[in-house]
């Protein structure tokens, strides 16, 4: 059943691509319906599969001569991320409801690229055949470029090209590793589980693991390969930022776990020597993750562009995901997957607030200018929304971010105590940048005076539309629900983490 998430999205994209241009308004309604169907399918599958293990979805021989099969299956991790994709897709379309209002918006094309991207993301999360996974992974790259380059804002062509090249370079690294693994294992299968059984020589894993891990981690925004993320997020139109931060960065983290760590668990083993206290790829990448947490948070603290604040905060939060993965403990991995979900929802909400609700009305994202607009009074909805989303994002108990971050930190404390301390500091800095942005944008106490020193009346903006409210309720509600009752997801994630290859969970230890 889950396979229909993929088919529906691609079919929807195809229909939109050939729809007459005059039907822009119908296009977005149609796109919303397609996304809702995808979410419904994902939700139904999530509920019906319950806590059981991997559910087979499809298995057809694709190119038998090369041992490539069209194999789809969904374990708990995949089902959680499919659900996230469905939510992000629906929310993204709701927050793009203004596209198609004007002549020349090219709404059909926008939603066609949007759904094609979503289809690719669903495909990655469901693929078991690595070749298939790679195909979907690459399919997701091209629509991103066009979404940003055509409908974006600040330096959009630069941001779009940078993002496309980083993604493509990352996927080239992944492809080298996959090809080498495929050829080494005798080139008769690309099935993830079959390849994971193959005893690759440790020396082989030692170079293949960092290559493939880095390739995927580029898309997850791992420091020092994160620079595409802030520029890309800022350049992208709101819906694309929401998808980028919400699900595309998760593709990278998912690939790290599902492909790099599962196929080459011995790549995490100690090298046998130590350099500056780093004695394995595991520690090296964990260090990068921690630097990402601190660096992203610190840079977010000094940004003047509201969207850059959120962009760098994504780098920081994705660092937590990577750190959680590298703990190789049950609780750390649980937390990492939960953090993927939580950050997907919250980053979407923050980008929607900044990029859609505020920017589309004020036409500025400069915190200095925003601080003079009395937004707290002019847009109370946006202000309170940002308070809620910001609190959730900085890890306030009661929201999804808290549960995830605590688990990651506990896992990290067991594996790398010092890194856990530093990551904790990063979370504190997270409070600072969220607070600062919130204060500057919404609750500035600057007197609202014009050049002559007269008081400026509170500006009036267009009222908040139903689509915006619906999107907010969807995302904020989900975050609150998960925060109050995390077992909704954790009960599904935990068995899936337990079912990961034994070598992975015991890896990194001699």
């Amino acid at each position, binding site marked *: 059943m889950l396979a229909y998430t993929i088919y529906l999205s691609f079919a929807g994209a195809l229909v939109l*691509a050939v729809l007459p241009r005059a039907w822009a308004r119908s296009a977005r309604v149609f796109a919303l319906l397609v996304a809702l169907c995808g979410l419904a399918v994902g939700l139904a599958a999530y509920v019906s599969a319950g806590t059981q293990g991997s559910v087979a979805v499809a298995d057809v021989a694709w190119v*038998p001569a090369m041992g490539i099969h069209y194999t789809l299956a969904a374990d708990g991790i995949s089902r959680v991320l499919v659900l996230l994709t469905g939510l992000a897709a629906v929310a993204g379309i709701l927050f793009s409801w203004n596209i198609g209002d004007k002549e020349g918006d090219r709404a059909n094309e926008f939603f066609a690229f949007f759904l094609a991207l979503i289809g690719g993301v669903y495909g990655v999360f469901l693929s078991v055949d690595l070749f298939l996974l*790679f195909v979907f992974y690459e399919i997701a790259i091209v629509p991103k470029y066009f979404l940003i380059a*055509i409908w974006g804002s600040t330096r959009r062509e630069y941001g779009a090209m940078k993002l496309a090249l980083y993604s*493509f370079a990352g996927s080239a690294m992944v492809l080298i590793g996959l090809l080498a693994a495929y050829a080494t294992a005798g080139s008769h299968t690309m099935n993830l589980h079959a390849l994971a059984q193959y005893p690759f020589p440790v020396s082989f894993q030692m170079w293949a693991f960092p290559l493939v891990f880095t390739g995927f981690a580029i898309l997850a925004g791992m420091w020092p390969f994160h620079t595409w993320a802030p520029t890309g997020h800022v350049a992208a139109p709101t819906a694309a930022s929401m998808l980028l931060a919400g699900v595309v960065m998760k593709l990278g983290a998912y690939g790290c776990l599902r492909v790099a760590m599962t196929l080459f668990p011995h790549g995490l083993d100690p090298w046998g020597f130590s350099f500056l206290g780093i004695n394995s790829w595991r520690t090296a990448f964990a260090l990068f993750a921690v630097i990402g947490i601190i660096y992203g948070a610190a840079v977010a603290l000094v940004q003047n562009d509201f969207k850059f604040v959120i962009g760098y905060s994504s780098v920081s939060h994705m660092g937590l995901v990577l750190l959680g993965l590298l703990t190789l403990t049950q609780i750390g991995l649980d937390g990492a997957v939960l953090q993927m979900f939580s950050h997907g929802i919250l980053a979407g909400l923050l980008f929607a607030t900044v990029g859609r609700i505020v920017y589309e009305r004020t036409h500025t994202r400069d915190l200095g200018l925003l601080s003079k607009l009395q937004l707290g009074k002019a847009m109370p909805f946006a202000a309170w929304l940002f308070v809620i989303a910001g609190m959730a994002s900085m890890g306030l108990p009661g929201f999804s971010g808290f549960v995830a971050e605590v688990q990651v930190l506990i896992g990290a404390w067991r594996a790398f105590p010092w890194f856990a301390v530093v990551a904790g500091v990063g979370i504190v800095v997270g409070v600072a940048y969220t607070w600062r942005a919130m204060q500057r944008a919404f609750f500035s106490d600057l007197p609202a005076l014009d050049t002559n020193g007269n008081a400026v009346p509170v500006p009036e903006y267009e009222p908040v539309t139903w689509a915006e409210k619906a999107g907010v309720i969807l995302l904020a509600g989900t975050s609150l629900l998960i925060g109050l009752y995390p077992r909704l997801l954790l009960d599904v994630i935990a068995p899936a983490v337990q079912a990961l290859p034994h070598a992975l969970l015991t890896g990194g230890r001699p």
Partner: protein
Amino acid sequence: MNGVNYSDLFFTTLPETILEVVSLLVLVVDLGLLRKSAQSTRMAVACTLGVLGSAFAILWLLVHPQAPSVADAALVATPLVAAAQIGILILTALVFLLSTKAKFSRNPGEFSAIVLLGTTGMMLVAAARDLLVIFVALELLSLSLYVLTAFAKSVAQSADAALKYYLFGGMSAALMLFGFSYLYGLTGTTSLSGIAKSLATQGVTPLLVVALVLVAAGLGFKVAAVPFHLWAPDTYQGAPAPVAALIASGSKVASFAVLIALTGGFITSSAYAQGSTWVVLLVWMAAGSIVLGNLGALVQTSVRRLLAYSAIAHAGYMLLGIAAHTEQSGAAVLYYALTYALTTVGAFGVIAIVERGAGSDRLDAFAGLSRRNPLLAGTMLIFLLSLAGIPPLVVFWAKFNLFAAVLRSPSASHWGLGLVATALGASAVSLYYYLQVLKRVYVLKPIETEPMPISTIELATLLFIALAVVLLGIFPGLLSAWIPLG
């Protein structure tokens, strides 16, 4: 070459004969019957006859994929050769279909006849397994292409390109013939199987090295591999668009087919294969082509030149497969050459239409194409993404299959991984320049806004090619009846 069986010869070369007959027929019809007709009618008739001739030859090959070899296997007819020949014929037919509305020439009959002659040359090249036959067939192909390049008589650039192409080509043909003469002197035979037998018992002598270097120079020119690539950008830019498409497609397929055959002749025993001169030459040419081709394409402002540099890079990828010289890698190279050629013909078809509508092939001429002609833009999107190796389009499969074959090859163990990594890294670079074109097509605003005119037959052909690129990408098994995958 004793004891030629003429009936075998007749049956083996029947497809080529069909093309020859049709090319004479085109001349008779065009110069005899249609002399008073309008230019456009003459072009349409000439191209239609060309398509029909190709179709007949394809039909014959489909029915008889395996004919007896002739004259000590100077010409062979195996299923793989038949696949290459059918591919070449399909490409030629597509080029004809895309030329029906072309206005570059006042001599449609001659154009069509020479294209058919060139195709005959390509088919013979693909089947030849004897040095002399290879040389003669290559010359038939090359001479036809020189003439065709100069066919736009009113355009100075066309003559310029043809002269450059001819001078380079003549020189490299001379070098290759010189190399062949050494090979003959060393082995006493011109048949590739005989050369293979004889070389297996000899060591590497300086004379052999010289001979191989000369042959590599000759064929390196044909496939536009570095350092014999300098003609390609000028020729791709100056030649009439259909001719450039032919040079980039059918001629490439034929040249790679003969490279596969020659490599089979030079390398037989595995002891000799390790570090053999020929492999070393191919690997260096491949590495140079991959790097220079992709870097050169980055700075181009003419889309034709951009495709020329990308063709150099693609030739580099295919040379890796040749150097790996296993049975699978040979088939993988052929698969790559055919699918790459198909995509390139489509891309040149779009370029021809844009040139006619906007007057140039510069990047800016493509600005806003998606608003001036969405279907044309859509096909260009598919072709360029296929060239960039984005799944699920067909060149991605070809690349995967080729590189997997290279990595599997036992003789490529010490260079395979490094060069495949280089190739994949370089193809990440290549996305940049393909996106430069697509950015114009989809992102930038058009300078002129009126729709870009396109004739039904051109649109149908382009849609057919685009559909083929997509379908072959989604169902790569479709071709495996002719070319085994994996």
